[in-house]
């Protein structure tokens, strides 16, 4: 059956149905206003639970059976265990052994360790993934081998989809570094500490059935209750949630790559000169190589001027906690932790607070934190001459990354894409992005080692940057410069088959990914 396609507001051809469910084509930034009510899971009663509050179940398999695991269900997991995750793989090992089929896996992100699931995608235990597909999972999807169509969402889009009932979770499995028998849990202690459990919060509230899995059962109460046991059906203990060294990197390192340092330094200088950062500003930081280096240069700017960052959002590293300690940052609102120092800080510093993804990123809510952010620096795989961005596919057409918080952060007051102008001969500035993930109107500045391009819509920044001595060029000039060095690349070829849909933050379909042809 050939999909019926329509051209969405961004000019991309998208279907009206994905996996048999109707979807809404992208209508523009802020244009689609939802109607109706939030989704709600079935009502529980405490009469059906043990009066002593002990929900410990003998094994994950028993817990899954108790949850009524059957064909076609949706299973959600969070990604705080990152590349050290044993739990998600274990769920599908069990499902496979039980002969269960057509499960939808709904992770908040996937990692290379989840390549373990490829055989289950091949044999139909898992019909498709809605989340992120990295590396070999992405390649598998791009080759058209997934049984159904994958769906990619941003972190905020994932909470919106849960809230709106677009994705109904049958079983949420929450790997918890510390939990009590009632199901109260947090990420702060234990051999598999993850710091926070922000990505699991929404799943726990909306799933029909919730299983907490821990390798660190403590007696009631497990405090603080990052996950409230009131939502939890059963608690399972296992030997190990994952490989600790892959869950949290011991110490995050700033890139030593001189090329990346040039980009970071130029970004920080740009932000200082144009007044994007100032005393009391709000910033979002990431753990990518360039982002960390930018954070370190910003730290120096804050110190030199005697300024403070009011609040730093985002993935936390020792570079942010260092600012908290020396007073150049007042608060950290933490959605994800990247190193052991950040876990220490969360445990000890009252100004370092976990937040939920729903509270900061959900577009269908009563306000949007992301809009308070003065400066965010992000990466991309491609940016086109209209400033549209791609983060999921490479220029050769293969799906290789998830969206993460990227789309959500575009709503910051100043969105800066900081990246090398070309990587291994592949230019990042293109005529048209292979896959549209973020509309150009939300992307303000591109910083590369060979120059800075400012979105013509930002006449204020174009004015402010004058006299800075920074190498400001047009995006076309940057593109031509890269092509003079690398050559103009050919385009990948695709079949008509849609292998993945890209959701915008409001649940509408902004683009699709097609199967790569045998090039």
């Amino acid at each position, binding site marked *: 059956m050939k999909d019926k396609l329509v051209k969405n507001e961004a000019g991309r051809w998208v279907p009206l149905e994905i996996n048999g469910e109707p979807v809404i084509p992208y209508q523009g930034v802020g244009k689609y206003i939802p109607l109706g009510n939030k989704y709600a899971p079935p009502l529980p009663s405490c009469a059906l639970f043990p009066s002593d509050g002990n929900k410990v179940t003998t094994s994950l398999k028993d817990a899954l059976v108790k949850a009524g695991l059957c064909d076609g269900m949706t299973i959600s997991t969070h990604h705080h265990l990152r590349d050290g995750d044993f739990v998600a793989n274990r769920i599908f090992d069990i499902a496979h052994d039980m002969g269960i089929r057509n499960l939808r896996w709904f992770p908040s992100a996937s990692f290379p360790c989840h390549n373990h699931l490829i055989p289950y995608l091949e044999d139909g235990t898992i019909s498709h993934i809605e989340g992120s597909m990295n590396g070999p999972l992405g390649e598998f999807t791009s080759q058209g081998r997934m049984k159904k169509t994958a769906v990619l969402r941003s972190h905020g889009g994932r909470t919106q989809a849960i809230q709106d009932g677009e994705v109904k979770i049958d079983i949420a499995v929450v790997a918890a570094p510390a939990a009590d028998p009632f199901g109260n849990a947090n990420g702060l202690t234990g051999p598999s500490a993850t710091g926070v459990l922000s990505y699991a919060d929404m799943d726990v509230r909306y799933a029909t059935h919730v299983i907490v899995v821990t390798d660190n059962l403590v007696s009631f109460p497990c405090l603080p209750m990052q996950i409230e046991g009131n939502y939890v059906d059963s608690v399972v203990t296992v030997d190990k949630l994952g490989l600790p060294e892959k869950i949290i990197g011991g110490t995050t390192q700033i890139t*030593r790559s*001189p*090329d990346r*340092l*040039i980009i970071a330094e130029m970004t920080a200088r740009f932000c200082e000169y144009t007044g994007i950062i100032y005393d009391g500003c709000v910033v979002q930081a990431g753990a990518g190589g360039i982002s960390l280096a930018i954070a370190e240069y910003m730290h120096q700017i804050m110190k030199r001027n005697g300024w403070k960052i009011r609040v730093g959002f985002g993935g936390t590293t020792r570079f942010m906690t260092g600012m908290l300690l020396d007073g150049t940052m007042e608060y950290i609102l933490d959605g994800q932790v990247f190193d052991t120092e950040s876990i220490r800080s969360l445990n000890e510093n009252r100004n370092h607070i976990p937040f939920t993804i729903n509270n900061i990123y959900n577009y269908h809510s009563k306000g949007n934190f992301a809009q308070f952010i003065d400066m965010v620096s992000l990466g991309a795989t491609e940016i086109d001459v209209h400033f549209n961005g791609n983060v999921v596919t490479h*220029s*050769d*057409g293969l799906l290789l990354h998830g969206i993460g918080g990227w789309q959500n952060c575009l709503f910051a007051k100043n969105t800066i894409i900081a990246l090398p102008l070309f*990587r*291994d*001969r*592949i230019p990042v500035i293109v005529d048209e992005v292979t896959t549209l993930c973020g509309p150009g109107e939300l992307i303000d500045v591109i910083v590369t*080692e*060979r120059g800075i391009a400012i979105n013509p819509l930002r006449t204020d920044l174009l004015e402010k940057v004058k006299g800075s001595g920074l190498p400001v060029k047009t995006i076309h000039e940057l593109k031509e410069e890269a092509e003079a*060095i*690398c*050559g103009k*690349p*050919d*385009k*990948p070829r695709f079949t008509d088959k849609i292998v993945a849909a890209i959701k915008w933050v409001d649940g509408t379909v902004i683009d699709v990914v097609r199967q790569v042809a045998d*090039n």
Partner: protein
Amino acid sequence: MEGTSGNRGPSVRSDCYVAITPMAAGGIVTEIKSKTRVLFGRHIENLVREVLLSFGLEHARVEVEDAGALPWAMAARLEAALKQVFPAPKEFLPPELPQNRRETARDRQRRSRLYLPGDQPKLMINAGLYGADGIILDLEDSVAPSRKEDARYLVRNALRNNDFHGAELMVRINQLPDGLEDLRFVVPQPLNLILIPKCESASEVKAVDDRIAELNPDPSRKIWLMPIIESALGVLRAFEIASASENVVALAIGLEDYTADIGAERSSEGLESFYARSALVNAARAAGIQPIDSVFSGFENLDELRAVATRSKAMGFEGMGCIHPAQIAVIHECFNPGEKEIAKAKKIVMAFEAAEKAGIGVIALGSKMIDAPVVKRALRTILLAEQNGLLNPKWRESDEG
């Protein structure tokens, strides 16, 4: 017979490996593996044919394992592999970037010179962005003996087609006589300066100078020389080396080899090389050229580098070598004129100009008489301060007002 060139393996980037086997018949048969195959497979295929056919090699099996090599690097690999099995006097030259061909002044500032191993294209691509005064494409110690020939093609092509963003272009050739063969590859290209390693005599400098004159297609174009003194004998002959040719613009010292040669251990304080460095500064100044210090090899430790560079400037050196881009900013900061130095130079220059205007032969600052070398040095300080944005070129107006 198979000719090979380049690098392959999981950690290789921006480079490629090429193997060429000439055949009796069958045309050019390619096997191309590349991370960029979808985007650049056709370009790579075309380049292979273009290079082979330019040498008249019509039948061959060509294997390319590419990790995102830029065209100039791939062409160098192809030519190096081809010439092992199909000797030809011709060259395959990538287009020359007009911005790379520019002359440099004899006394231009040479605070920093960044060493790049001549067989690693990856490090060359962005080298011009780091702001070093000079970039050295090294054919000598950083290139393994088995890679010397590969490096000649790569360095030649980089000089022509890789944008070095205005840095002074330098090549360190091998010790003679191999170094004289290196010159054949680089002299016709955009190039400003040749470093002569382990130099111990004026005759070596003359041999290099003569060979350059033979190879230089445009005799009016200057190619400067910077001999590197790396031995006890070299130090003793520093002045004759420095004055061996009018093209010698600077004298550098290489302390790793020098300390080994005198049987000492190299320390960051540098007491063991104090005599040699002082002698070198003296010889260079006597010959009217720039004394340039060695590299500092602990590239992680920028604080120690700062201390070393500060002492180096105090001894009279005008610059240092860099082995990592992170060293450049620190070295510039240390060799740039300091605030006090600029303030003093301004006073001297103003006194000098006032005396000139009034037609007075004797210059005085307060009660102190000032002689010509002091004025000359002050003028140089002002020039460097202006060039590096430390002093507004209109300082006279604001200072007088």
